[in-house]
């Protein structure tokens, strides 16, 4: 049998729709508040619909709602509003107190009438002074209410009579009797107004705008008392226990019968207060007539308030404010041609909502809240998310909207495809391609052809282009975001797995290809199954991705491994290696050479991983055995085992360095040394490479210096030539000048200028050559410095290793010495013991011999 009982309604809802609508969480306070508000809202809406249809005032619907919410707050109705609220609250409290003890006090009206009638009668007959009798009335009324309620409680406790039935009976009896008594008592007071007379009118605080504050004070005090008693006193807690489980209270040793009677009596007392409040504080008379045969509704209103506020004394305040708003707006609604019983209709439907609160409690309107919190497009994105089962974290609303656009485009294309038929010849083409694909062989070339023909004519091509465009854009955006937020990476969560940015980008890039993206989506959908092993769609096989296990070996996590057959394992290894190798080698192939290289890498990786997987499988079988019954190998790797495996690995690595073989290192030291060794190897490689680079730079600098020398020499020669030319010109200018010589001079001057320019050029070239040479030399120096630093670090590391090793050896020696010492000490002790034993034996022997001589062989 099902352990958690579900109603038929829930069971029928148990489909996809239920996931969105139904939730089993019932205990949260916010949920209760929301359910209450929803119930009230629904009732309100239904009542408004009824009112509008009945009075044919659909055009006035807004006006009606406005009147209900606003008319109570007008100055003339303010008193009525709040005194109504106080009365409703007190009625609700009366109900709540009994209900918390598991008693449904439907007789609040009767108790109220009884209290008010008795109080009126006694005060009327006694003629008490007007100052004192207010409290006397209150006390008498409370006592009478409590009396009748206590009778009901006693009937329930001792005779097991249902309190609902008996209190309904009492309601009517009290009602008829009080009319009778009031009528006969009022005869001397005012004979003409028999039934509607209330002699206390002149005695207690008057209503009519004067006794609002006393009413509110009384209500406030009662709220405080009820809330405190029910929540913070032993008495109240006992009441609640009695209400929750009668047998539980009995087992706890409470006096259940006394509790029942007490809670009922208190409820009745509050009802008595209610009676005083209504008939002496609110309305000046008691409108009860024999002909009407209608018990005053205030008690039932109290039940409504108590039920809809989920029996919380504090919650009853806003609920009753709402109710009193409805109640006081009635007189304004009559102007709008709506019957004044609309408030009763609303109350009734609200109580029905309280009965059907389970419906509202199990509602899960989270799509609404999410839309409000996360932004407009979230619900649209949600569809996509459901499709791909990806939970997109760390995405802003803008990003969401971009993703949505991208999805919408695809959907549009789909719609176009579905609505518009392709032309017949293209359909024939596709059909023929299909036939060839299915009938002949499932060749990849054919598939590609078929897909291409489809794509071109169905708009998928645009989609692809758009996808590429969007992915590029998206990448840039995300990078910018990362820079802005100063983060190192971003991630996406696929169920339990977390994909980091590089992995994901690969996937996103793959997703630009349509076919791949479909597969990716399927993959992500199946990612719920924790391990992605689709080739075996066998439900019993859940293999761990061993490669990831190998990668995680160093982190020391625990895994649960379940393996059924070896051949499947090997097949799995093969697939994994294939994937890995492809990701290594075949990602970006450009030339034939590269392709060959990739092939070699592929085969190497395949061999390596296959060996690893096989070895680990063997070790697992050896160490943990096989569960024959289930034909499943259940393995649980604990961190210790993983650690030892890791340590063995490390030892192997370290032992490749000659002088560290068979070095006695502890685990921590091993780890440290391992890190240092890897650092030294790295540094060594760096030293070698940068040293070689430095030498090459120096070599490269030499020709530039030679060039510089050559150029400077040239420049000097040119300068000499220029000097000669200038001399000549000077001579010619200083001597007697003939007109015929002028052109010759001009020519010379021109030549001199050219030479000048050439000199400057060569100088510049020389400087350039020198600078570049100098640059190379600088790089060389820099590299040398780096080499020096690296060597220093390497030496340091080596020294550290040496020190650790030395320390370890010393420790070992110390341990050895200590062991030796301990051995020595133990030997000495043992010798001493042996000696002592020998002495004792000798003594015994002597003693025995002595005894034998004395004729007492039994004395030892």
């Amino acid at each position, binding site marked *: 049998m099902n352990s958690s009982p579900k109603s038929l309604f829930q069971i029928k809802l148990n489909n996809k729709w239920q996931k969105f609508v139904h939730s089993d969480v019932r205990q949260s306070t916010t949920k209760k508040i929301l359910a209450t508000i929803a119930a009230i809202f629904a009732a309100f809406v239904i009542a408004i619909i009824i009112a509008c249809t009945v009075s044919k005032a659909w055009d006035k619907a807004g006006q009606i709602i406005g009147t209900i919410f606003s008319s109570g707050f007008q100055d003339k109705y303010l008193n009525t509003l709040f005194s109504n609220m106080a009365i409703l609250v007190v009625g609700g409290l009366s109900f709540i107190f009994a209900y918390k003890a598991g008693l449904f006090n439907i007789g609040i009206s009767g108790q109220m009438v009884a209290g008010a009638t008795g109080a009126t009668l006694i005060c009327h007959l006694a003629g008490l002074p007007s100052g004192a009798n207010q409290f006397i009335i209150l006390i008498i009324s409370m006592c009478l209410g409590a009396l009748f309620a206590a009778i009901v409680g006693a009937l329930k406790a001792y005779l097991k009579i249902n309190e609902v039935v008996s209190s309904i009976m009492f309601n009517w009896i009290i009602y008829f009797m009080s009319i009778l008594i009031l009528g006969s008592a009022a005869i001397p007071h005012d004979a003409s107004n028999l039934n509607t007379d209330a002699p206390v009118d002149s005695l207690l605080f008057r209503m009519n705008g004067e006794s609002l504050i006393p009413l509110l004070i009384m209500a406030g005090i009662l709220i405080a008392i009820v809330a405190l008693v029910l929540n913070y006193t032993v008495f109240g807690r006992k009441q609640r226990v009695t209400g929750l489980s009668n047998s539980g209270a009995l087992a706890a040793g409470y006096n259940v019968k006394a509790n029942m009677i007490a809670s009922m009596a208190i409820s009745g007392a509050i009802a008595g207060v209610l009676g005083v409040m209504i008939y002496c504080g609110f309305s000046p008379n008691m409108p009860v007539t024999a002909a009407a045969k209608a018990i005053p509704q205030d008690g039932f209103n109290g*039940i409504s308030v108590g039920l809809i506020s989920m029996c919380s004394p504090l919650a009853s305040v806003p609920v009753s404010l709402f109710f009193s708003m409805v109640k006081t707006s009635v007189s304004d609604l009559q102007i709008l041609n709506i019957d004044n019983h609309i408030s009763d209709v609303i109350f009734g439907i609200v109580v029905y909502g309280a009965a059907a609160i*389970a419906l509202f409690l199990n509602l899960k309107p989270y799509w609404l809240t999410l839309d409000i919190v996360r932004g407009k497009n979230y619900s649209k994105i949600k569809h996509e998310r459901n499709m791909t089962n990806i939970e997109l974290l760390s995405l802003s609303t803008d990003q969401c909207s971009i993703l949505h656009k991208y999805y919408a485009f695809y959907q549009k294309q789909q719609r176009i495809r579905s609505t518009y038929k392709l032309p017949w010849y293209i359909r024939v083409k596709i059909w023929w391609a299909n036939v060839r694909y299915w009938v002949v062989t499932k060749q990849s070339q054919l598939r590609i052809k078929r897909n291409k023909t489809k794509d071109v004519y169905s708009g998928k091509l645009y989609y692809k282009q758009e996808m590429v465009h969007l992915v590029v854009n998206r990448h840039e955006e995300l990078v910018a975001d990362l820079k802005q937020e100063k983060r190192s990476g971003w991630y996406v969560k696929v169920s339990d797995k977390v994909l980091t940015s590089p992995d994901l980008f690969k996937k996103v890039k793959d997703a630009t290809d349509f076919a791949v993206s479909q597969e990716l989506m399927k993959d992500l959908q199946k990612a719920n199954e924790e391990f992605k092993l689709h080739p075996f769609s066998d439900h019993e096989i859940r293999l761990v991705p061993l490669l990831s296990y190998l990668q995680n070996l160093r982190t020391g996590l625990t895994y649960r491994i379940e393996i059924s057959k070896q051949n499947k394992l090997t097949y799995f290894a093969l697939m994994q290696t294939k994937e890995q190798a492809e990701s290594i080698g075949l990602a970006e192939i450009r030339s034939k050479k590269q392709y060959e290289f990739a092939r070699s890498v592929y085969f190497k990786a395949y061999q390596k991983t296959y060996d690893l997987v096989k070895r680990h499988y063997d070790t697992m079988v050896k160490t943990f055995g096989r569960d024959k019954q289930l034909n499943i190998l259940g393995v649980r790797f604990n961190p210790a085992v993983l650690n030892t495996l890791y340590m063995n690995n490390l030892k192997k690595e370290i032992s490749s360095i000659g002088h560290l073989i068979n070095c006695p290192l502890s685990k921590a030291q091993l780890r440290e040394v391992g890190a240092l060794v890897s650092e030294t190897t790295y540094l060594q490689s760096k030293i070698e490479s940068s040293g070689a680079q430095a030498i090459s730079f120096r070599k490269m600098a030499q020709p530039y210096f030679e060039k510089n020398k050559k150029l400077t020499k040239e420049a000097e020669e040119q300068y000499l030539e220029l000097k000669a030319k200038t001399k000549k010109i000077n001579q010619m200018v200083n001597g007697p000048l003939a007109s015929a010589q002028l052109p010759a001079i001009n020519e010379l001057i021109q030549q001199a200028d050219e030479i000048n320019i050439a000199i400057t050029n060569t100088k510049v070239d020389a400087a350039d050559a020198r600078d570049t040479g100098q640059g190379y030399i600088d790089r060389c120096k820099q590299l040398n410095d780096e080499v020096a630093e690296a060597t220093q670090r390497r030496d340091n590391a080596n020294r550290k290793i040496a020190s650790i090793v030395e320390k370890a050896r010393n420790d070992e020696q110390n341990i050895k010495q200590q062991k030796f010492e301990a051995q020595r000490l133990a030997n000495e002790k043992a010798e001493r013991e042996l000696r002592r034993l020998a002495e004792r034996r000798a003594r015994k022997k002597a003693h025995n011999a002595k005894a034998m001589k004395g004729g007492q062989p039994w004395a030892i």
Partner: protein
Amino acid sequence: MGDLGSLLDLSFLFTAILLAGALSGYLSERAGIVNLGIDGMMCVGALFFGIFSSTAFWGGVPAFPTIIIALLLTMICTMIMGAMHAFVCIHLKADHTIAGTAINLVGLALATFLNPTLARYLYPGASNSRIMCQYSSCLPMGPSLFGSSLIIFLVVLAIAIAIFFVVNKTKVGLRFRAVGENPNAVDAQGISVFKYQWVAVLLSSAMAGLAGGLFLFKVTAFNGDVQSLGYLSLAILITGGWRVPKITIFAIVFALFNAAAGTTTFTQLGIPQLVVFAIPYIITLIVLLFSGRKSLAPAHSGIPFEKGMR
């Protein structure tokens, strides 16, 4: 004789109303659903009967045989209230008392709210803005012993006898009772408990609707409430110890009291009218006092049925 005749006539009608109401409570409570909302359902039934008995509905003064159709329609329409009660009690597993209180409030409020509007719509020319029974012309409620109220009484009595035989002597009826006593045992037999409970509550509401319809014969103008006859029939159900013969007897007794309160019979003896009104309730309380320990009620009434519980 005229005084006695009118008294008997009134008490026959009252018996019919109260018996129908009590049978309504009996039917639902035998299937484990407490129906506190008889009063509210009766109000709605009266409202519906006002509609179906009107000249506006039949397009003229209704002939006598149409009364059967009108009552049947009333019963069917009142099943809406029963469906509301059943849905909340059976499927949402609400407290039956809360649901019954809600039904009472809703029924009373709807009846009082819709009453003047409907009356205005049904009787366009009339000055009276209350629903009334328009069969009174062809079904006279005369001050005679053999008036039409005797026929009504006999019909309701026949219904009661039929219910008695069906519930106590047939397979369906015994199953029906078993649902109220131990639904899990019934469920274990492979019988749908929910189905029986639904049928029970719907029939119960139909009976309440019948009672409400008959109530309209009694009053000249429907006020919106049924003068607490629903509560009185609940009292009859309890006093009768959930057994049909006893219920019938107490219905007759209570009806006599109620009818006598309207006449001057008791006031002539010096007993005030209000005391007479209260007497049925006092009788109920006394009967409860003596029979409360025996617990004659169906064992599983008022407890929501859950499949998972043993």
